[in-house]
């Protein structure tokens, strides 16, 4: 028969939250990291496709040099970068138990994300009116697919942020479940690092 100490040890550990799972790591966090690792493959394939097709344009068709507006895209990049800071400040505030600041930073992050997506919609519209449609050439197809998928990721991130905000306003987001914000934050920062790659490889190197 097991003695009292053998029984009490895991109970004490569970009370302190030291080993909630068999691995000692949060399953939700492992799940998000696995998803992000698999998403690397998606964006790896999209960026690779773009790099292989970006010069498949005829002399009369619009190419990257003709359509890219670097100053405009630079502002969008700064906006997305700033949203990563506000996201991490939202998590930090919740970990301190500062609910009001957490709500503020979550809202600001969502608004910065919406600004970025709005900029992308404006960019796509401008390119389309300049003559670069989705099926104009391989450059257009690869560019719209890659940046479009990124924009969809940002949009999904905004939905998650707004869900967190609603959860917080209902009083269900507290210091104790700060991990939820951390997991959404991981997704948001991932979207940011993908843009760091796209902005350099697709936009800046293309026109330099």
């Amino acid at each position: 028969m097991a003695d009292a100490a053998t029984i009490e040890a895991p109970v004490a550990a569970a009370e302190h939250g030291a080993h909630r799972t068999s691995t000692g790591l949060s399953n939700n966090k492992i799940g998000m990291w696995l998803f992000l690792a698999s998403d690397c493959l998606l964006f790896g394939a999209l960026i690779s496709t773009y790099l292989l097709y970006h010069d498949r344009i005829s002399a009369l068709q619009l190419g990257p040099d003709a359509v890219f507006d670097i100053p405009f895209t630079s502002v969008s990049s700064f906006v997305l970068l700033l949203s990563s800071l506000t996201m991490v400040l939202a998590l930090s505030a919740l970990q301190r138990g500062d609910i009001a600041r957490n709500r503020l930073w979550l809202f600001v992050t969502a608004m910065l994300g919406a600004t970025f997506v709005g900029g992308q919609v404006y960019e796509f519209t401008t390119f389309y009116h300049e003559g670069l449609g989705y099926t104009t050439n391989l450059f257009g197809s690869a560019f719209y697919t890659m940046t479009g998928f990124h924009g969809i990721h940002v949009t999904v991130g905004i939905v998650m942020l707004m869900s967190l905000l609603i959860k917080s306003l209902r009083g269900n987001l507290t210091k104790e479940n700060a991990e939820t914000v951390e997991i959404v934050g991981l997704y948001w920062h991932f979207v940011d690092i993908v843009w760091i790659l796209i902005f350099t490889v697709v936009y800046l190197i293309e026109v330099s």
Partner: protein
Amino acid sequence: MSSETLAHDVTHAGHDEHAEGHAHPGDKQYVVVALILGLFTAIEVLTYFVDFGGLAIPTLLALMVIKFAMVVLYFMHLKFDSPVFMRLFIVGIALALSVYCVMLAAFQFGT
């Protein structure tokens, strides 16, 4: 990786996870990291307006890698979190790079 090594990693991961809440940077450090990222982005944008010659592409690639690493290490907390998460992410990046290499090879030799 042997089961003993994995068990060792996971055991340490559990301890690291337990301690991670205390090891995360403060708000000031996050702001400093963001300012550095902003500065690097400004230098990247500068390559569009100023002629860097042959240094442009190496500069852009170096800054891209540094910015990527800073976000992953500080904002995504991989510097402070369990090494298991770092390994998961590195596997993803390695697979993504191999996809590019395979596609490049396919276009080079297969067409």
